[in-house]
């Protein structure tokens, strides 16, 4: 697939497993936010739930697309495999993943920057989607746009951490920093496939850190 074909062959089963873990972790965060929303009816929690639910769905999309494409590719030779890599970058799985992730990150930015003007929100959404789908290389565009969006989120959490100096605030800041770094590592995959592994593990560490924070909160 789209992401797995950038990965070294030996890492493919691990990647599949980790993506499933990432799906469950993000779904867990989404679920707790949903529970708070049910209790408080505050729109912020619903938005946060929507954001993490979309991220969870994006991981599920990755898992499903990877499984389907991996099965198909077993019978292909290397040349065909490369053609499929190129074409899969424009594939439907990637498109859905992009839509889910960008929508999720946009919701987080709207929450962080407290954007309320619907015109600004629609403009942001249109620009992100256009940049993603009109670009020549969907893989590169996806990760560059993700980095840009995530940098705003990281800056917000850094600001909160320096203002409040709480442990959980630091954990959230580091988590999103790791997730941002992972996107940068994914971009270096054209230099070496090893960067895919580094990016994937960094992304996993980022989301696991968020999950650990959630567990700590629940145990209070």
């Amino acid at each position, binding site marked *: 697939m789209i992401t797995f074909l950038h990965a070294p062959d030996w890492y493919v089963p691990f990647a599949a497993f980790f993506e499933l873990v990432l799906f469950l972790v993000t779904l867990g965060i989404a679920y*707790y936010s949903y529970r708070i929303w049910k*209790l408080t009816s505050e729109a912020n929690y619903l938005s946060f739930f929507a954001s993490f639910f979309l991220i969870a769905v994006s991981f599920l999309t990755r898992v499903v697309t990877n499984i389907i494409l991996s099965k198909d590719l077993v019978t292909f030779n290397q040349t065909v495999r490369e053609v499929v890599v190129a074409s899969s970058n424009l594939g439907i799985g990637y498109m859905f993943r992009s839509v889910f992730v960008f929508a999720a990150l946009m919701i987080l930015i709207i929450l962080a920057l407290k954007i309320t003007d619907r015109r600004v929100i629609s403009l942001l959404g249109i620009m992100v989607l256009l940049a993603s789908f009109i670009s020549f290389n969907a893989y590169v565009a996806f990760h560059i746009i993700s980095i840009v969006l995530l940098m705003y989120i990281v800056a917000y959490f850094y600001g909160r951490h320096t203002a409040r100096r709480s442990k959980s605030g630091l954990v959230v800041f580091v988590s999103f920093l790791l997730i941002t770094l992972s996107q940068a590592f994914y971009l270096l995959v054209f230099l070496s496939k090893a960067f895919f592994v580094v990016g994937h593990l960094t992304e996993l560490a980022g989301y696991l850190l968020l999950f650990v924070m959630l567990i700590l909160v629940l145990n209070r």
Partner: protein
Amino acid sequence: MIKRDKISIIYDILHAIQAKGGKIKPTHLLYKSNLSYQTMLRYLDELMGKGMVYTVQEKKSKFYCIGDKGYQFLAEYKRIKEFTESFGL
């Protein structure tokens, strides 16, 4: 003086009602919640809409009572606050 956030104000209102045995007079709540009358009414309106608080009329007095969702909120408050602060919600 640190400005209270919305979650803390809701907690203070519900906690004040709970501390009075789950039923409190508006004047007492006004004193305990440390809010202006208008702000308190706005919050109570919202809490009633969410099913956390309801009113009862006893003789000539009106009382605010804490509902099931209100008790649930109090039980979850610390977690909700920590979650809210961590993610800047």
